[in-house]
C-alpha cells in the first residue's frame, strides 16, 4: 500500500511539474511582457523595487501597468528590479505594506515605487525610517518628506472622454462598476468624470442616457462570480457598455460581456489586447509616470518632484483614450482630438470636487437617469 501511495503522490507532483514547464509561454503584443517579472541579480540586492496595491500583480490594469513601467526603466538602464506583494492579499494591513517596503529597502532598493493610495500610512513610516531611499507614490499625495514623490492623475478627464465617446457613438444604456467600494479616490474620479462626459454628450445630442452605477463586489479589486452575475443581468436588461473600473474586476465584466455580445470600457491601461469586448479604455499613463519619476531619481533632478505631488493630466499627455485600438466608428479621432484640446486649454471644465458617492447623488445631471446600486 505504501508503494501505491507513493505512486499517487509522485503522479500528482509530476502533473504539477508539467504545469511549471509551460509557464514561460504566452504574452501579448505589449513590449513590456517580454521582460521577465522576476530576475536574479548577481549580488542579491535589487535597486528598483515595486510594492503592489491590493489585487493581482498581473491585473492587466493598475498594478501591471505600473510594473511594466518600472520593469521597462530598469531593463533599459540595466538595473536590478524586483516586485513585492504585501502579505495577506486583499486583507493586507498597513503593517503588511510597511513590511513589504522594509523588505524592499533592506534588499538594497534605491528607488521604491509604491502603487495605490492605500500605501500612504505605511509609506510615511517606511520613508521616515529609510531617508536615503527614494519613494515614488503613485495615486498619492505629498507626505511632507523629501524622499517621497507623490504622483496623482486627473482621472476625471479620461473618465469624461470615455463617457462622452460611447454616448456620441450612439449608446444610451451605460454601466459603471467601480473598485474599492467607493472609497478609492482614483476610481471615484473616474466614475464622476464618466458621468459628466456621458451627460455632456447626451445634452449635445438632446437625448436621455440611462446609467447603472455600482460599487458592489469590487472592494478588493478582484473578479468574482457574483460580479459576473450582476454584470450579466445588466447586459441582459439592455445595458450596452460597462465601464470596468477596478483591476481584476475587468475579467468578470468581460466574461459577462462576451456572453451577451456587449462591450466593456477598460481602465488605467489600454486593455484592448485582453478581450475582444473592449470598445476603448480610459487611459492614464501610469507606466510612463513611473519611468519618469524613477528617471528623476537617477539624473539628479529628484528635488523637482520630491516632497511634492505632481498632478498629471491631459496637458501632460497622461490621460486620454487610445485612439489606435478603439472600436468606435461614429465618434471620430478628429472629434476626440478637438475635445482633448478643449480640455487642455480649459474650454471644457471637468469638475473634480464632489466625486464621492454621497455627494454625486446631490449633483444634477440634466440628461442622465442614474440607478445607484
Amino acid at each position, binding site marked *: 500500500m505504501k508503494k501505491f501511495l507513493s505512486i499517487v503522490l509522485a503522479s500528482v507532483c509530476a502533473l504539477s511539474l508539467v504545469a511549471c514547464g509551460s509557464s514561460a509561454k504566452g504574452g501579448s503584443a505589449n513590449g513590456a511582457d517580454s521582460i521577465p517579472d522576476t530576475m536574479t541579480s548577481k549580488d542579491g540586492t535589487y535597486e528598483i523595487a515595486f510594492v503592489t496595491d491590493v489585487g*493581482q500583480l498581473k491585473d492587466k490594469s493598475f498594478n501591471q501597468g505600473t510594473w511594466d513601467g518600472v520593469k521597462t526603466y530598469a531593463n533599459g538602464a540595466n538595473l536590478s528590479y524586483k516586485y513585492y506583494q504585501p502579505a495577506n492579499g486583499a486583507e493586507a494591513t498597513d503593517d503588511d505594506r510597511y513590511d513589504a517596503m522594509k523588505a524592499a529597502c533592506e534588499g538594497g532598493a534605491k528607488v521604491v515605487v509604491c502603487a495605490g493610495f492605500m500605501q500612504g500610512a505605511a509609506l510615511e513610516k517606511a520613508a521616515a525610517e529609510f531617508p536615503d531611499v527614494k519613494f515614488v507614490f503613485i495615486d498619492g499625495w505629498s507626505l511632507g518628506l523629501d524622499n517621497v514623490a507623490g504622483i496623482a492623475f486627473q482621472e476625471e478627464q479620461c473618465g469624461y472622454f470615455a463617457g462622452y465617446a460611447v454616448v456620441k457613438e450612439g449608446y444610451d444604456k451605460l454601466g459603471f462598476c467601480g473598485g474599492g467600494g467607493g472609497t478609492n479616490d482614483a476610481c471615484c474620479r473616474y466614475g464622476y468624470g464618466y458621468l459628466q462626459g456621458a451627460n455632456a454628450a447626451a445634452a449635445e445630442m438632446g437625448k436621455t442616457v440611462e446609467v447603472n452605477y455600482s460599487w458592489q463586489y469590487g472592494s478588493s479589486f478582484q473578479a468574482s*462570480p457574483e460580479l459576473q452575475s450582476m454584470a450579466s443581468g*445588466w447586459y441582459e436588461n439592455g445595458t450596452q457598455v460597462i465601464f470596468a473600473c477596478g483591476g481584476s474586476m475587468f475579467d468578470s465584466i468581460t466574461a459577462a460581456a462576451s456572453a451577451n455580445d456587449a462591450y466593456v470600457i477598460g481602465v488605467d491601461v489600454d486593455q484592448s489586447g485582453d478581450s475582444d469586448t473592449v470598445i476603448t479604455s480610459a487611459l492614464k499613463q501610469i507606466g510612463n509616470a513611473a519611468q519618469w519619476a524613477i528617471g528623476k531619481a537617477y539624473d539628479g533632478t529628484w528635488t523637482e518632484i520630491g516632497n511634492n505631488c505632481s498632478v498629471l493630466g491631459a496637458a501632460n499627455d497622461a490621460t486620454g483614450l487610445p485612439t489606435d485600438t478603439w472600436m468606435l466608428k461614429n465618434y471620430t479621432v478628429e472629434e476626440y482630438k478637438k475635445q482633448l484640446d478643449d480640455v487642455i486649454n480649459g474650454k471644457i471644465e471637468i469638475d473634480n470636487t464632489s466625486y464621492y458617492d454621497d455627494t454625486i447623488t446631490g449633483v444634477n445631471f440634466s440628461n442622465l437617469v442614474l440607478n445607484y446600486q
Partner: protein
Amino acid sequence: MTYLVQQTLLYAIPLMIVALAGVFAERSGIINLALEGIMIFGAFMGVLFVRMMQSTYWIEYASSHKGYGTMQLLEILTMLFAGLCGAIFSLLLSFASINLKADQTIGGTALNMMAPAFVLFFIRIIANQNTLQMLSGDSASMFMIKKTTLGFSKNDDLGFLGNTFLHKVYLATYLCIIIYVVLSVILYKTKFGLRLRSCGENPQAADSLGINVYKMRYTGTTISGALAGMGGFVYSMTTANCTSNGDVAGFGFLALAVMIFGNWKPLNIAGASILFGLFKCIAAGYSSIDINGDGIYLLADIGVSAHLYRMLPYVITLLVLAFTSKNSRAPKAEGIPYDKGKR
C-alpha cells in the same frame, strides 16, 4: 425570467454534482469532508489543462476559426481530466481512512487545508500571482453555446424555452445533469449500488455475504473524488471565468449542507441545490430580475438593502438545516472505520 433560470442553473449544477459526490462517499461509509478541497484541486487542474491546451496548435487554430466543436471537445476533455485529478486527490483520503483507519473528519479537514495551499503554491510559480487565468480570452467566448453557435442568426427568436435552454448555456450543465441521473440510477437500481449502500449501513453484514467492504469504500470515495473534481472545474468555468485562485467560495461546504438537507437522496438533493442556486442568483442579480417580463424589477424596487439579499443563501442554509436536520437519516455506518474483527 430567462436570466433567473440560467443564473440559477449555473450556481445549482456544481452544487448538485458535488452533493452527489458526497452521497457516493457517505453511502459507502466514508464521510467526505474534503469536497471543498477536492473542488479547489479539480478547478486548478482543469484551468491548468485549458491553459496548456490553449498553446497547442489545434486549439489556437480552432479559436481563430471559430471551431466551436473543438472547443466543446476541449470542455469535455477538461471535465474528464479534472475528474481524474479529483479522483487521484481523493485517494489520499481513502488511504488514510480505509487502510490506516484514521478519523475521517480529520482526514477530510487536512485535505481541505492542504488543497488551497498546494494550489496557491503552484499558481505562484506559474503565474507570479494568486490567480491562474487562461492564456487569452474568456470562458464565455470559448465554451459558451449561443444561438450563433447552433447556426441561428443573431436576431432569431427561439421562444422562451429556446432562449433559456439553447442560448447562452454551457454543454457542461447538460452533461452534469445526465451524469447525475445515470449515477443516481446506478446507486439505487443496480447490484453494485445496493452493495455500495450496504457498506454504509452495515458493513459487517455486507462482508458476511462476501462483499469486499474495503474495495467498495475505495470505489465510493473515488467516484466521489472524481465528481467533486469535475464539479470544481465546472464551477470555475461557468461562474468564475475559468480562473483558479485556491477558493471555490465555500461551494464544497454548501454542497455538504445540500446533501444533508436532501437527506442523502438524489431527488431531494436536486431540489435543494436548485433552491440554493436560486438564492445565490437572487443575491447577485436581484436588481436585474424581472419575473414576468413587464419591466418592473420587484426585488430592487422594494428598497431592501443589497446586503440582505447577499446574506440570503447562508441564512436559508442555517434555517433549513435547523428545521430539517431532525428528520435527516445519515447512513448508519458512516464515519466508522471498518474493522473485520469487530462485531
